[in-house]
Structures are given as structure tokens and as C-alpha cells.
């Protein structure tokens, strides 16, 4: 049961963001910029960063939601599965492997990012902006994962829920919109 009264029709982060709209708006704007804004990384690649961080934090709701979003954007399920469990053998570019390694370090602590990790990313062609955005996406999901679990929001058990949510994230992005969650209902 959530630690504060949240809308029972809006599980996970959705009810938390609806609980306090003033603080939710800048979080939504930041997420939309980082995951859907112009970038040399694809939307699918950026959802993979969100996925590995949420997985590292053991946040079931966020991991399932962003895995489903990555699957939908990439058009297959293997990549998201492997970046979580076997990054070295995941079918992503060498550059993405170095960025996901940085993201996993940030998930534990910002101080865990080493100059070697940065050199490897730059050698694989990562730009300063890509490194910046990788660190900030990882930091942002360190926020989300704590918010979702720290308030004990509900984690739906059925994978169909996350597929419905992924369609909202892929079609509408992260900004507030009218009847945003209408598609969550079965």
C-alpha cells in the first residue's frame, strides 16, 4: 500500500506525478527533453539507459515500463533484456556499451565514474553532450526509482499494463497532456 493516498487507477509513477502537479511539471519537462528531445542518440538508446539504471536500483515498475518502451521503440525485445543481464554481449554499438557502463556507475554513485570510463567512451566516438546526457539520464532515474519505491506506489503484476504504458510513452512522450492515461485502462 502506498505511504500516501494516491489515485488507485494510476499505479507506479503515474499517480505520484498526478499527486503534486507543481513538482511533477519540471520533472516531466526534463524527462521529455532528455529522452525525446533532439539527440544523436536514438529514443530507443536513451530508453535503454533508463532501463539499466532502473534495473540496477531494483525498481520493478520503472524497469518494466522502460523495458517495454525500449522494446517498442527498437522493435524487438532482445536488446533491452541483454543490456540488463549481459551488457558485454548485448547487440548495441561499442559507443552505447561505454555509455551504459557510465550510466551503471552513476547509478551507484557519481564518484564511481572513472577517467578511464570517459576515455573509453570518447575513444568509441561519444561526444561531451552524449556523456553529459547519459550521466543526467542516469541521475534522473536515480530520482524516479527512489520516488516510486520510496512512496511504495503500486506495481501492477501484468506485463500488458506496461505495454499499454509504453504506447503512451512512445506516442505522447513525457509532457502532461489531456487524458494522458486514458489508454492505461483495459
Amino acid at each position: 500500500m502506498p505511504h500516501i493516498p494516491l489515485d488507485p487507477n494510476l499505479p507506479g509513477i503515474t499517480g505520484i506525478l498526478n499527486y503534486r502537479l507543481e513538482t511533477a511539471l519540471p520533472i516531466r519537462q526534463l524527462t521529455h527533453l532528455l529522452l525525446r528531445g533532439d539527440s544523436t542518440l536514438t529514443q530507443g538508446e536513451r530508453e535503454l539507459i533508463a532501463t539499466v539504471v532502473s534495473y540496477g536500483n531494483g525498481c520493478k515498475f520503472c524497469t518494466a515500463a522502460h523495458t517495454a518502451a525500449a522494446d517498442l521503440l527498437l522493435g524487438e525485445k532482445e536488446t533491452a533484456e541483454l543490456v540488463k543481464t549481459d551488457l558485454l554481449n548485448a547487440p548495441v554499438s561499442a559507443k552505447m556499451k561505454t555509455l551504459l557502463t557510465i550510466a551503471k556507475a552513476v547509478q551507484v554513485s557519481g564518484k564511481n565514474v572513472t577517467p578511464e570510463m570517459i576515455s573509453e567512451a570518447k575513444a568509441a566516438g561519444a561526444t561531451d553532450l552524449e556523456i553529459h546526457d547519459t550521466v543526467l539520464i542516469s541521475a534522473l532515474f536515480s530520482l524516479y526509482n527512489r520516488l516510486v519505491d520510496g512512496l511504495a506506489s503500486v506495481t501492477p503484476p501484468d506485463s500488458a499494463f506496461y505495454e499499454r504504458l509504453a504506447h503512451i510513452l512512445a506516442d505522447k512522450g513525457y509532457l502532461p497532456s489531456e487524458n494522458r492515461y486514458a489508454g492505461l485502462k483495459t
Partner: protein
Amino acid sequence: MPHIDLPKEYPGIRSLFVFRPETAAPLNALVQTLLHNPHPTLSPGERELIATYVSSLNNCKYCATVHGAIAKHHLHNGDVVQSVKANPETAPISKKLKALLKIAGRVQLSGKEVSPADVDAARKEGATDIEIHDTVLIAAAFSMFNRYVDGLATWAPDDPEVYDRMGKQRAEEGYLTPPFKIQPQIKN
């Protein structure tokens, strides 16, 4: 040395805000709403203490020192800031704030560490739903800010006077005004 090419005349998160103004806007809007704008029950000083405590637990020198300085200027009391950093249990603060800082400390480790007993203890001291929400969100937000600042190896000044000036500016102006340059002016 920072991991990416950042403007040298701004320390900590300020260098990142100059590097990427697009992401700086919502990040500043978030702290402005969460820490500075009027709140039904928690003073800006109390909210800054939560930010300071979490940053201190994460050993983020820049964030812990600057938010400690902001808290000091709001509360007109530097000793209470030092006591909270050392041990909130024995600090001269309300029982409710102690209970909220305990929740913040749990969130710093992991959201899963917050137990129903922690939340009940806070409610027993009068904490409201919004106070519990905001405490969790402040702790989660500083888990983000601390990682952002240290994950890109931004530089942190050593001079306490610099932090005091930054703290005074943010306590008075909030988070939406431009920062002052640290070098070379401060050395003049």
C-alpha cells in the same frame, strides 16, 4: 578535472547549467518549487536541511556545502546545519523534522528502505501527506543532483567564503537568477 569541457568560471552544478541551458531550466524550476517557493508547512530552511543532509550522506562536497550555506542563511543559524550533518537525532530541530530526515536518509540509500514504521513515526510527530511526499522527493532529487555534479567531476571551491556568498544569494533570490562568476573576481 571535469570529464567534459565545462566553463571554468562556474563551479559545481552551475558549470553544467551553463553547458546545457535546456536541461538547466527544468532542473532550476524543480528546486525553486521544491525548496524555495512557499510551502503549506515546511519552511525553506527546513527543506534546505533535507537537501543538505542527503548531499552530505552522498559525500557531494559542492551540494552539501552550498545547500548548507543556503540553509544557514534561511535559518540565521549555522550551528543547526552542522548538527544535522553530524547527526539529525541529536540536532536542535523539531521531532517532526527528525522523523522526516530519517525518511530522507532511507531514500538516499534506496526507495525500498523506507518502511511503513518510518512513515508512521513521522505521522505521529504530525507529518502530513504532502510533507512525506516532499521529503521523499527532495531526497530523490538530491540523489539525482549529487550524481549529476560528481558523475561529471565538476570542480568544487575550497573557500568557505565563496559558499557563504552563494548561500546568501540563493536564500535571498531563489534559484532562477544568474550565478556570479567565481574566478577571477574572488581572487582580486
